[in-house]
């Protein structure tokens, strides 16, 4: 295994985060804090508890998940798209490095950033809202699993995109709406029966539900199903990445 190459890619990607600290960390933390202030502290104080949890505390897992999904996709897609855009991808393709090593470097760095960001948001949320974590190990596992899965997904988007617009289109037009409609701000049980069934087709519902369970022990869907769906999505992404590198899709002529 080319450990030096993995370290080089991983270090290069993380160095970009420190160089763009405001954009990478401060900006998402600030916007999530605003959600906590508006929905948690201001509006939340006038709303009824959901399943025995105050509204401010109820939205904490969903908001962390919203940031993680967005940032994982954004970091991983940018990480692989930028060399394609600038032309420096030639170096990656001509290096003695295998597909798993490339993926560990890029996806690992993007997931690390997301985990760091999620942890910072978690700590920041505690400033505005009182909450507890019922299953901390499951919470950490869920945080890492989601970060890795969506970093894989972002990596695929970065390979697929051949322009800045394409790079943004899936996160903005698909992932963000799915996240907002995935139970970040409400329980699925609050929807009319028909929309409850429709919501089950939204994969983000399973992520948010599982993550919320690790906090408060309550969930919209079965916890095993939640983790199972996340693993299935991760598996699909891994297969897609393997196909990309085997065929050279959008990377090699």
């Amino acid at each position, binding site marked *: 295994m080319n450990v*030096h190459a993995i370290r080089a890619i991983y270090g290069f990607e993380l160095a970009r985060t420190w160089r763009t600290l405001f954009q990478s960390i401060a900006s998402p933390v600030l916007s999530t804090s605003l959600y906590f202030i508006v929905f948690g502290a201001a509006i939340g104080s006038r709303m009824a508890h959901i399943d025995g949890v105050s509204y401010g505390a109820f939205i904490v897992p969903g908001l962390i998940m919203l940031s993680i999904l967005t940032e994982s996709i954004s970091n991983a897609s940018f990480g692989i798209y930028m060399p394609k855009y600038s032309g420096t991808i030639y*170096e990656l393709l001509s290096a003695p490095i295998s597909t798993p090593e490339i993926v560990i470097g890029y996806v690992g760095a993007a997931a690390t950033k997301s985990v760091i960001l999620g942890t910072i948001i978690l700590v920041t949320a505690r400033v505005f809202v009182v909450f507890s974590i019922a299953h901390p190990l499951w919470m950490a596992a869920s945080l890492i699993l989601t970060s890795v899965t969506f970093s894989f997904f972002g990596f695929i988007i970065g390979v697929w995109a051949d322009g800045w617009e394409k790079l943004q289109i899936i996160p903005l037009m698909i992932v963000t709406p799915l996240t907002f409609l995935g139970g970040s701000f409400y329980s699925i049980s609050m929807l009319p029966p028909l929309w409850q069934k429709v919501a089950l087709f939204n994969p983000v519902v399973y992520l948010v539900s599982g993550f919320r369970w690790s906090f408060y022990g309550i969930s919209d869907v079965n916890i095993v199903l939640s983790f199972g769906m996340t693993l299935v999505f991760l598996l699909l992404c891994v297969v897609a990445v393997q196909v990309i590198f085997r065929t050279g899709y959008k990377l090699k002529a």
Partner: protein
Amino acid sequence: MQSIIQVSHLTKTYAGGFQALKSVDLEIHQGEIFALLGPNGAGKTTLISIICGIVNPTRGQVLADGHDIIRDFRAARATIGLVPQELTTDAFESVWDTVNFSRGLFGKPADAAYLERVLKDLSLWEKRSSKILTLSGGMKRRVMIAKALSHEPRILFLDEPTAGVDVELRRAMWDMVRSLRESGVTIILTTHYIEEAQEMADRIGVISKGELILVEEKTALMRKLGRKKLTLQLRSPLTQLPAELTDSHLELSGDGLELVYSYDSQGQRTGITTLLRRLAELGIVFKDLQTSESSLEDIFVSLVRSR
């Protein structure tokens, strides 16, 4: 001489159906400077890109230092450094960081002393902390060479290495390439500057429309295909070539003041003595004469045109 790169029956057909390489066979000798010449779209960059792993071959085999570039890609690629044609760099990285990154990517542990030597050899040491975007075009080109050398390759590909650089820097790069060869690195360069190939190469390959039409020692090539010209400057202009000289490989210039005689310098008889005697018999007096040899460019143009 031992081969360091062996290309056998290499074919590349792109998705759109364009056949960029047509069963190319080529051997690069260890320690030589090999110049690959060819017009735009001839297949030079495709050939290099396949050897380096950037483009997938359709058919054929490539061995780099004895390692198959597909089956044993790690060992093959570890021996190769590439300086691509385009100035593609991570603009926001420092020179030091980017060469360190390249070394790591090629599986080598950090070696500050080696990288310092590379940067000093390329006159980049003073700029090691500068961001690449602040550097001039010539310096960026040198950064790309430093990146390619960062993992101590045995084979270096230079795709149009001096495109867009000034004459002074071009000369400096030629010196650098020669010193790399002296250190044992095999160099394969593509260039549009025939002068560059003529100046540096040990052997020349000419590729046209995806076919390698010639591979030859540079000096042998020039000896074999090169023709010499004898130009006679006349004292009085001629209105036309005398009938007695029409079969003498002579051309009369437009102003009638120059006679140009083409001959094979390697031939047993050049015909110069006979020509001068016949001119004297016809009373044609010349005031000066000079000879010139075909350049590599002339040879190249003539080869490509003849296809």
